[in-house]
């Protein structure tokens, strides 16, 4: 299950150019390029690992370990697969290894031995997040959806065609009968509007100090 290529990996061909260039820069020793990759996929990886690991803190730790393993292995990454596909496999293996290591430890109150049988199937575990974190998750989803629904039609259409359908700027321009530059501007404005709602929810104190 978790090893299958995701639809968005196929649909978003052009945006992998960013990942490829960032990987190249990391392999040349640019640590900020890896930071960009971490920030780009941190939420997705945490969400993925959350299907294997119920505990929120453990989920964050395993996600951190995932990125560290990816960093160590990046010099050997040849680009045969998309970067996120490769990262996805690392995340799944790291989560499974973490759970296997847990099984070797004495049982604790947090880990139910019966649940271990479900790990290989990748079935999402019961979410034992705290109410606050669950609330945060819902708030994030709501912020995104409400913002898109409140956008002007041309902006909502452009961002939906781009993010959901995975169309290129040229295809969107053809669909919407407008220049590519207009498509580029509309997508950007939609993202900025969504960002205005998301930023307060996700900012760290250091990010706020940088002038957000």
């Amino acid at each position, binding site marked *: *299950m*978790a090893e299958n290529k995701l639809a968005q990996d196929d649909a978003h061909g*052009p945006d992998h150019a960013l990942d490829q260039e960032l990987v190249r820069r990391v392999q040349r020793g640019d640590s900020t390029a890896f930071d960009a990759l971490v*920030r780009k996929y*941190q*939420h*997705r990886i945490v969400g993925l690992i959350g299907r294997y690991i119920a505990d929120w803190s453990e989920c964050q730790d395993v996600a951190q370990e995932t990125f560290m393993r990816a960093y160590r292995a990046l010099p050997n990454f040849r680009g045969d697969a998309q970067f996120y596909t490769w990262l996805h496999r690392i995340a799944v293996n790291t989560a499974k290894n973490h759970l296997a290591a847990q099984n070797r430890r004495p049982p604790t109150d947090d880990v139910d031995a019966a649940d271990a049988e479900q790990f290989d199937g990748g079935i999402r575990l019961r979410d034992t997040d705290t109410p606050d974190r669950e609330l945060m998750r819902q708030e994030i989803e709501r912020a995104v959806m409400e913002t898109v629904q409140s956008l002007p039609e041309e902006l909502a259409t452009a961002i939906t065609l781009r993010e959901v359908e995975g169309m290129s700027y040229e295809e969107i321009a053809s669909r919407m009968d407008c220049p590519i530059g207009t498509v580029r501007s509309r997508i950007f404005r939609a993202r900025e509007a969504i960002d205005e709602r998301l930023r307060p929810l996700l*900012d760290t*104190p250091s990010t706020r100090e940088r002038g957000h």
Partner: protein
Amino acid sequence: MPMHMTPPNSSGHDDREALSALFDGELEADAARFAHRRLGHDPQWRDACGRWQLAGDVLRRHAGRLSAGAAPAGFADPGFAEPGFAERVAQALEAESRQAGQIAVANAPRRRWIPGAALAASVAVAALFVVRPLSEPEPGPGLAPAPLMASDAESGSAGTSPVDAPATALAQSEDMAPAASPSASESSTFEPAAAEAVMAAAATAVAAAETSRRSDRAPRSLGQRRTSRSNEAASMTVAAETPAVTGPVIESVPVDAIASLPGSTTTPSGATPSNPFAPAATETDADATPSRPWPRAVLPGYGERGGYAVGFGEAVQASPSFFPFEPQLSGQQEAVAAEEPSPPPER
């Protein structure tokens, strides 16, 4: 876009629009390079990319987009990382690299001793030339005292430091040692070969200088002396590539005896494995470029009688101090040419 909707910072607006295009892989080459550079040093840009990715995941999840045979429903859950997650990853990686660096530093000294050993070997060779003349016997009759480098040379001791001699030999050895050191860092077996190469180079340099001095029987100008020095350096560079010469060969054979051996064959470097002091085969009296003579104390077998000074082969007079450009003194040239060095004492 209507003018009233233009953001106050249009330049920043345009830049972030470029970031949005870069995020989608729709930015041209030159603009993409600039945007990547900005992405590398602007953490706000990197944060924006993370939020845009999250927003896209939320949209896709709600749209129910799944590839064929992919995860069950709900797979693309928009989990979110805690604030500061990326910073923690960066700190962990930095700590890991710091730890790896400390380990590398701990291992480094094991390799650093190799060039140091080569340098120590060159110093030992230079010290050898300094120490040996002190124990050599008095020159035989008919041999005029050679010019000395220090005022106490006439008293029979060559012990006053011929400062230039070992320093020159050491410098020349050091010149060759660094050339060999890059390979030393690559191989742990370099060290013995480096010491031998240094000794061979020093011996060959002595032989080359000796030969050129013998052939030069006319006063030389400053320019000629400089030319001779450059030739000596060139011969020493070639000498560094010669096969190693064992220590005993250098110590036991008098310079003059070897240099005067007729028909002595030489390698292109000017020394044979058994006769390091033999003159270069290509060098003839007529073609020899006048070279600066070696100080007395550098040469084995001269001890108190002193080494060669400027204008060896001509009559030279002992001078109270060693001065390479000291003018030639008549009456001593034949005496110096006729003198026969006694064999060096056993160590």
